[in-house]
């Protein structure tokens, strides 16, 4: 498995270089055409290929920051790209869901094998969240753009505050499992590599926790965000899953929740490959590098930096929604 992962890192690095060089080489070989295209497109003198290249680098950096800050890529991608790039919010949300989906799919196998993600916890939660994500996606597409921008800005600022004040618990105390959790057999155990201990867990307040995923699913679908920022506190603080299981299951859950919403955006034409694919590839490559930097980074500083970025981009989305 380790060899597989190392091999994948090398492969992805090589592919990114090829991707970048390929685009530049093509454009460089036909500069006049590119310049004419840019003029015709009216993108401030930028040739068409400049945006995918900028997006690839931007998402690469975003991927590093997201891993270091412990947030999903989508929550940074949607407000920042809709605020600072020329793309309409419809396409940013479509690409944002693909970004969150690809990251979750890539992380899923490792989390499931280590038992940090639990199918028994994820299946009931995913069914609720993914159904509601479809509703959210339709809501997001039916509402006027400025309203969605306003709601997005408010949500992003709320997430920033949530990150600032929430204090997750590594091992919540669950004295007695509730009836719903017991009936569904939502419990498990994992080996904690940091302590070498076998950690057994079970849930409480399962029904209210499951109901919270109605709101989380709608928000994920509506704004094209991965909803890890909301999944973790509900699974950990409300339902009593250990932090590692909450984080792992949350990441895995995104692969299911975002799938349902991604199809809605896909079927409605909200995915433009020219901008969506560099976003996905850039963010995934950044995530790989971020994981390697994780050991050396100062998480507290990065956490505050991300909170600052979220407040700023949330504010910008609010202003955009208000027409400024």
């Amino acid at each position, binding site marked *: 498995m380790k060899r597989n992962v190392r091999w994948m890192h090398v492969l992805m690095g090589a592919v990114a270089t090829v991707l970048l060089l390929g685009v530049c080489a093509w454009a460089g070989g036909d500069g006049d055409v590119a310049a004419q295209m840019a003029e015709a497109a009216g993108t401030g003198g930028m040739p068409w290929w400049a945006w995918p290249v900028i997006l690839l680098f931007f998402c690469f950096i975003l991927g590093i920051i997201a891993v270091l800050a412990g947030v999903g890529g989508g929550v940074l991608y949607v407000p920042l790209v809709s605020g600072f790039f*020329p793309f309409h919010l419809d*396409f940013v949300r479509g690409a944002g869901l693909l970004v969150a989906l690809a990251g979750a799919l890539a992380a899923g196998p490792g989390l499931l*094998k280590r038992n940090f993600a639990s199918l028994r916890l994820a299946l*009931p939660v995913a069914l609720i969240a993914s159904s509601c994500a479809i509703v959210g996606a339709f809501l997001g597409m039916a509402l006027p753009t400025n309203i969605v921008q306003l709601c997005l800005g408010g949500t992003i600022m709320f997430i920033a505050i949530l990150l600032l004040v929430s204090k997750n618990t590594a091992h919540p105390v669950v004295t007695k499992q509730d009836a719903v959790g017991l009936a569904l057999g939502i*419990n498990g*155990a994992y080996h904690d590599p940091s302590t070498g201990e076998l950690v057994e867990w079970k849930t409480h307040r399962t029904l209210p926790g499951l109901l919270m995923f109605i709101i989380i699913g709608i928000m994920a679908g509506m704004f094209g965000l991965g909803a890890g920022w909301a999944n973790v506190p509900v699974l950990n603080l409300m339902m009593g899953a250990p932090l590692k299981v909450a984080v792992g299951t949350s990441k895995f859950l995104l692969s299911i929740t975002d799938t349902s919403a991604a199809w809605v955006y896909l079927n409605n034409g*909200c995915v433009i490959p020219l901008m969506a694919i560099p976003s996905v590839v850039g963010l*995934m490559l950044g995530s790989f590098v971020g994981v390697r930097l994780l050991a050396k980074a100062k998480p507290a500083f990065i956490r505050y930096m991300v909170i600052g970025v979220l407040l700023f981009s949330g504010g910008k989305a609010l202003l955009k929604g208000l027409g400024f």
Partner: protein
Amino acid sequence: MSEKTKGTASPEQISYANLLFYGCWTGLGIMIVTYLIYVLGLMSPHVSMDHVVQLWSRPVHDYLTQGNVPSGWGWVGLLGKGDFLNFLGIVLLAGLTIVCYIPLIPAYLKKKDPVFAILALAEVLILLVAASGIVGGGAH
């Protein structure tokens, strides 16, 4: 010794993880290859590059009408075009969860766990409905 006392993942969880691993990397590989074919101009696009750049700052409705872009599964008919060829990798990633969920149904039935078999079946149906495009969108 049970899976719980050992702290190991259940067999169905391991199968899911393996399927996800290979499917995910295959999807990303296809995505990168088809993107290179597209941007290097090896296959002509349905919507020209200059037109995409104009349309991506407008609402999706304008993109669909002015770019003559089909919605739903209409992209299948345009797989011969560089831009729509990219949907192969995207759709593989978007459909991977459905593929991974299907083996869970017989696995849970075999374990005499009908509740989780029904949960898995319901999830497959929901994702299939979302993928089918049956439920219409209100794109603006």
